[in-house]
């Protein structure tokens, strides 16, 4: 038993001392990428659509550190802007889906009974829709814009977040401390806010990371199919698609954005894994 009183500063210090080199690296990389995304216009040497040369796929040089792409634009600058758009979309999507998913999931768990049954049933039916199919149908009808992309993917994510949040809350709702609050006569709102939420925070944080990764991969896949972000705007997935054909001629430009996506996702997954292991929290069966 520790004699010290626990404070959040203490917890943070303890967490920092538990960091392994791999996790530290992943965290630093994530911070770096987010900074790059946030300050893209100040960091990028050129504009994202600026055509610098008539030569496609020029080799790296002092002017263009990673060479030019198929239209003669600076690959590095486009990468930096691509990261910005990918991260921006993924963040908006994840926040949206979390806001709605956790809210609805907790609601279902707190009310239980018929409310819960119907909400879960509808959600299960939505889950039986393969995610990509749902996205393709919506994009077929509405075309592809930022708004459509964000809301579609957030909706798909919402069904997953709902499931996880509800399962977490249901497991907490049956604890005796919640029952104690119920017998005391506390309202549902107080119970969810003071009893359920604090105990669901760690697994929800992990789930946030997982959903964030998923959003990045999903947008990238859509953009790769030509159905996501539309040129002239471009995220990392669009860059992969644009430069894909060149790989047949031995130009590897397309690999930069592809690995960029992978590294962001790996870092996030490493961090999430560490978080779950450290707190020995468990997510209700992942999808």
């Amino acid at each position: 038993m520790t004699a010290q009183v626990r404070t959040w500063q203490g917890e943070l210090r303890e967490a920092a001392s538990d960091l392994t080199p791999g996790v530290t690296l992943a965290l630093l990389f994530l911070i770096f990428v987010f900074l790059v995304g946030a300050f893209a216009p100040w960091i990028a040497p050129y504009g994202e659509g600026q055509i610098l040369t008539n030569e496609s796929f020029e080799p790296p040089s002092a002017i263009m550190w990673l060479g030019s792409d198929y239209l003669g634009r600076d690959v590095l600058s486009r990468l930096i802007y691509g990261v910005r758009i990918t991260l921006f979309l993924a963040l908006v999507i994840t926040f949206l889906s979390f806001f709605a998913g956790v809210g609805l999931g907790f609601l279902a768990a707190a009310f239980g009974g018929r409310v819960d049954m119907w909400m879960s049933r509808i959600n299960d039916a939505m889950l039986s829709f393969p995610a990509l199919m749902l996205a393709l149908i919506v994009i077929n009808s509405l075309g592809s814009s930022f708004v459509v992309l964000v809301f579609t993917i957030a909706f798909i994510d919402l069904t997953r977040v709902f499931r996880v949040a509800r399962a977490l809350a249901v497991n907490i709702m049956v604890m005796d401390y919640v029952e104690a609050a119920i017998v005391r006569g506390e309202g549902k709102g107080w119970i969810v806010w003071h009893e359920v939420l604090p105990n669901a925070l760690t697994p929800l944080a992990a789930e946030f990371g997982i959903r964030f990764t998923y959003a990045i991969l999903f947008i990238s896949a859509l953009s790769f199919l030509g159905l996501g972000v539309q040129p002239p705007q471009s995220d990392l997935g669009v860059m992969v698609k644009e430069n894909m054909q060149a790989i047949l001629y031995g130009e590897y430009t397309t690999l930069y954005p592809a690995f960029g996506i992978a590294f962001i996702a790996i870092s996030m997954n490493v961090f999430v894994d560490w978080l779950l292991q450290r707190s020995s929290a468990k997510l209700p069966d992942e999808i």
Partner: protein
Amino acid sequence: MAEPLLKVRNLDVSVRDKKGHEFKIVDDISFDVQPGEVIALIGESGSGKTTISLGCMGYTRPGCHITGGSVELGGTNVLDQSLTALQELRGKDITYVAQSAAASFNGAMTIDAQVTEIPIITGAMSREDALAKAAQLYADLELPDPENIGKRYPHQVSGGQLQRLMAAMAMISDPRLLILDEPTTALDVTTQIEVLYSFKKLIKDHKTAAIYVTHDLSLVAQVADHILVLKDGQMVEYGATEQIISDPQHDYTKALMAAAHLMPDEIHAPPVVTNEDPPLLQVRNATAGYGPDQDIIALQDIDLTIHAGETVGVIGESGSGKTTLGRLISGLMGAKKGGIYLDGHQLAQSVGQRSKEDLRQIQFAFQMADVALNPRQRLNKILSRPMLFYRGLSRREADREVARLLERVDLPTDFAWRFPPELSGGQRQRVNLARALAAEPRLIICDEITSALDTIVAQQILDLLEDLQDELNLSYMFITHDIATVSKISERIAVMRLGRIVAQGTVDQVLTPPCHEYTQLLLNSVPEMRTDWLDEAVVERRKLVAALGD
């Protein structure tokens, strides 16, 4: 004395925590088991008793490892054996009966397949012989339908039967040493003695040596020849059973003895209460159940009265409806028929419809303090919330009040800034009680609040309850399965069985013979500290069960 069958010398077992620090959970344990002898390992949770018994089989749970000492079985050191040799040893020479048979049987195989598995795959017996032997063992263990019970899957038989089937599995290869790890702890009290009896008979008939692991001193008196008392992984006292129970040397053993679940020699007759006041709480003719229309009846025609300042014990086994009754009174579920009356006025069915004042007067204390307290709230918040909620205290008043409350339940005041996981089990149970007190209630419903605690700690909590009652004129409804405890602290008792109250009245009325057969059965199941108790109790039990007629 002959060469012992099992020689354990200086056994050390350590665990490594997340940071890689090692610490010993079993420290320098030595004992012998003679052929045909039963030795009991006694201790509370965390005393290392299970770890030692597993160590005797050369096994440690994940995260633990044996760091020193030796375990010799008939001259071979178990700890030096290869995995293959160990597998042979475990199937044939040392066998194990686990605490929860329900979890330890494989749900995907029939019982026969599991009982006969080892002799068949090692070629020790033919299939037919093994099955015949299994059936014989089932019969010896007095299981119903011994020819066919093994054809079933584990989920198709009851807990008490599974526990005996597991003993059959352990005995099929005629082991030299049998390890029984809390084999009756998960069972209801009235089932417990039947299972214990069949284990005792089995061991005696086969002249098998055994290690019996338990936390319950009164039980082992019935089966063990020697007792080894453990605390925090260390040996406290080691001696013959007679000596330990009649003349314990060590203070810890004495404390264990004092806290054992024994019936008091004399049931105290409470002074005849000339209580003309209207009762504090009355349950009138209540029927309640679960399911959409409360079709599955859990409580039937319940009448119960609790006066101010008295303790009413509600006693019953699992499924008797005793916890449901507590939930009904506190408004966690509604009645199908009948009602609850506080000070003569009827309470609304559910929590949501009751007034704050009604809610405040009846508080609920839960069984498991570790899940009853939110691990993410400081004690200050846990304890001040009822004050703010019911009594409208200001923050500052509440802080002062919390400090007073902590002192009242004998906890340091600076605990207010701790979280529940930083407390021990007994401390948490005190907080659990303190939270109920924070509302300044008149009645506290205590649902098995001592059953998850080690006996010595449980006794301290009971003492605290009595002090608080004297001080604050509280009433308790004490729900438990333990008739010995309840007879010591209650003024009146209600005995529940299958959703009904079968007997009710003052302690001496209910518990002094002649009493209801079921009460008699419960009384009969409380172990006594004499070695011939079990045989008599089993005979008596069978008569009573026949008289109850189901």
